[in-house]
Every structure is written in C-alpha cells, then in structure tokens.
C-alpha cells in the first residue's frame, strides 16, 4: 500500500515553522497499530512532555524521531525539512541513509538504560561523536566534552569507565554526551525510570538547567508527573497511539477534560 505523498509539503516554510512536526504518522508492528495517524508539532525551544499508559506509543514517538524505528505512513519534519523522506524532482521519496544522517545530526537522545559505551571512559564517551562524526580534533573534542562534563557536575569522573559510575552519574554522562553534539532537539526517554529514587534529582536537576538556558527543543517521556508538571511548556497525554489530550501542565494536571486523562492521572497519583 503506497501512500499519496503529494498532499505533504516538500518543506515547511513561513514564520512559524515548528522544530518538529509529525503529520499523519502511523506505525504498526504487524497487526498492532502503535501510532495512529499522529499529528504533533513542537516549537523551537519548547519543552514537551509525553505521558500515558504503557503501550500508548509514547516511547515510539521518540524512537521514530531518532530514526531508530521506521514509520509506515505520514511524514516527520525536523527544522522545516522532512526527516523520513527527501525531495527528488518535486516529490517526496523515502529518505536515503545519507539524507537521514544529515537530518539526524540535529537530534540527540538519552535512553532509559543510559547506553554508555562500556569500553570508554566518561570523557571518551563524550568525545566519540565529536571526533568520529563531527571530525573535531582530539583537543577541541576534549575541551568541549569537559565543558559539558563540568556542567553535569562530573568533571572529576572524566577517566572513569561507566561500570565505576552510579546510575545517576551514568545518565548525566549520557546527557553530556548527547549535548556535546549540539543538537537542536533533545529526546529524553524515561531517563529516570532505571534510577534509584535518591539519585533521580541529580538527573532532573541537569534537565531543569537546560530548560530556558538554550533554545534547545526538548521532548521527554516520563512517569514522573511532578517533574513533568514543573518543567514542561506543554504536556501531551497519549492513549492508544494518539494524542488524547494536550495542554499546559496546569490545565492538563489540574483540569483535564477527558475521562481517560482523569483515570490515568488518578491511577498514577494513587500509585504514588
């Protein structure tokens, strides 16, 4: 089944181009529809949090944007350009790996299980992309990496391997590693879910500092409602692969319109 791509613009133009736009994006795993014709815009510099029950497709949103998953229909735009497709002779065609690599360079991601490279030190992890992808000299890469390790409070751990770092420290190194690449969009996929409760604030404090400090656009999937409420510009509640309800944290958490949102929030609050 091929989709008629002519209804999608080749690129987004105008004053109000969102940093990220999902248009009509569907993702299936076999018969299971994970995302169903998703439309979602994220403005430049905006912090959008995605909440919802497991299986609602929230992590899939981030994974598609990071190109860890392909999409079955629709288009994703990043910074005005299509990510999943590319323009050829006035038409949108599935993106080549070269095109994907170019657009992907605007996106960074932190994972639930950190995914640091175990055979490299904290500094080595941060430098890897700078040297191997951006082509920086080792000196420049080290300088930039140390700035970021310093920002996450781990400059003195530069020579430690991940196995010698706590979960909170590993996640902070992962954030430094992603930021070192200077992405325009940062994705946080349940970055505190694998952490012990007492170190969660180490990580949330770092993210808190990012908000407002740059024009970094951020998308975060989290189960920490308090953090989401405090930090987000907008909260999206996902249900069955679509945005069931979205709005400012105040509105969504205190005055949800939809029954499903209320049920979910009540269930989460009960659990806490």
């Amino acid at each position, binding site marked *: 089944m091929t989709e008629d791509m002519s209804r999608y613009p080749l690129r987004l133009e105008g004053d109000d181009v969102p940093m990220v736009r999902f248009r009509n994006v569907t993702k299936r795993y076999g018969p299971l529809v994970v995302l169903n014709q998703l439309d979602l815009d994220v403005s430049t510099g905006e912090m959008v949090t995605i909440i919802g029950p497991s299986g609602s497709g929230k992590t899939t949103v981030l994974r598609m944007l990071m190109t860890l998953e392909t999409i079955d229909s629709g288009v994703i735009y990043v910074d005005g350009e299509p990510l999943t497709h590319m323009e050829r002779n006035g038409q949108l065609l599935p993106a080549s790996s070269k095109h994907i690599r170019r657009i992907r360079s605007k996106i960074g991601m932190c994972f639930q299980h950190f995914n*640091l490279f175990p055979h490299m030190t904290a500094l080595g992890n941060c430098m890897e*992309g700078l040297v191997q992808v951006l082509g920086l000299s080792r000196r420049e890469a080290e300088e930039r990496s140390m700035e970021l390790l310093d920002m996450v409070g781990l400059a003195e751990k530069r020579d430690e391997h991940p196995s010698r770092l706590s979960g909170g420290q590993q996640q902070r190194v992962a954030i430094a590693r992603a930021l070192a690449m200077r992405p325009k969009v940062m994705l946080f996929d349940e970055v505190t879910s694998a952490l012990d409760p007492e170190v969660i604030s180490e990580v949330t404090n770092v993210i808190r500092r990012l908000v407002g400090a740059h024009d970094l656009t951020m998308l975060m999937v989290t189960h920490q409602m308090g953090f989401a409420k405090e930090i987000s510009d907008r909260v999206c509640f996902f249900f069955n692969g679509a945005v069931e309800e979205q709005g400012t944290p105040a509105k969504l958490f205190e005055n949800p319109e939809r029954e499903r949102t209320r049920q979910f929030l009540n269930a989460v609050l009960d659990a806490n």
Partner: protein
Amino acid sequence: MIEWRWHLVWELAPRFVDAAGKTLLAAGGGYSIAVVLGLVLVLAQRTRFRPLTFAVREFVELIRSTPLLLQVFFVFYVGPQFGLVLSPWTAGLIAIGLHYGAYLSEVYRGGIESVPAGQWEAAKALNLSVVRTYRRIVIPQALPPAISGMGNYLVGIFKDTPMLSVIGVTELMHTATAVGAESYRYLEPYTMVGAIFLAISLPAAYLISRFEKWVRRTLGMVK
C-alpha cells in the same frame, strides 16, 4: 617387551623440531586465513542483501556439516580436475582456513549478538556511520566474549594439522610416520608427537585465558 630408546629420541629431535615448526606454520597460516575469512563471512551474513546472506549461511552449514579430511581431499584432489592445481601446503592452508573460518564466523556472530541493542541505538543517536559503529563500538565489545571461542579453535586448528599429512605436508604426524617406515620404530616417534602437541597446547590454552582477562581489563569491562 619393547624398551624405550632414548638415543633414538635424541637422533630424531632435530627432525621433529623442524616438523614442529612446520606444524606451527600450518596452524598459524590456516588460522590467519580463518580469522579474516570468518570476519568476512559474519559481516556478509549481517547485510540486508538476502541472496548473499542465504548463500553465506548455507556455505557455513555445509562446511560445518562435513569432515575436515574430506574438505582437504576435495581442495587437493578435486581441485586439479577443475584446473586448480595447488601444492600440498597451499591446498592444506586453504582447506583448514575455510573450515575454521566457518566456525570462527559463528564465534564472531555470537560475540556481535552479545552486544546489547542499546549500544547500536546509542551509536545511531550519535550519528556514527555503520563502519564506525562496528569498528569503534561493536567489535571492541564483541571481542572479549569471542576470545575464549577463538582460542579454542586456535588450539583446535593446531590439533587438526595432522590431517594435512595425508596430502603430504611434512608436519609432525607426517614426519613420525616417515620415521616409522624407515626404522620400524613407532613408540618413540608417535610419543614425541604427542609430547610436542601437549607442550604447545597446554600453555596456549593458559595464555589465551590470560589474554582474555587482559583484554577485558584494558577495555575497562571488568565485571
């Protein structure tokens, strides 16, 4: 009762030292081919080009399901009928290289599959190219778990070099048999062969396990 003749041992020693060198050369040469071929096979199996992955998988299965001795004969005796005339040495190295390359590709595959999916994803999120992902991220992590398997096959290839005696490679076994035919003494030559194999295999196995620990330590992956 047959008595052990030490003077024969001393007399034969130079010939056996020479043959041991050839055995090591055959094992080393065959292993070098296998190490590289195994890597080519495993990478070919991981491409998305179906006919290639299918062909490689079938080839590996074919090699692993037939005896090495048959493969040695095939390369040496059947090859010439197709115009491929090889010296015993070349034929022998190709045969054990192919044979052990197929086994090593499976060892590599196990090593590569032991690298968590999250590592590939992190590499992608950093926009590393496929080649750099293998070279910088995957292979260094796939190596430590593969070393013991690679070491076993190194000892294995060494112990399989006597197979090459049947096509005339003058390694240890060939030499012992020749001595037997000349002198009608079999006890000393074959015992010497056994002793030499033991004297090389045992320290090799020990060194391999030391090497594995060293690699893990060097890569900072001590658990």
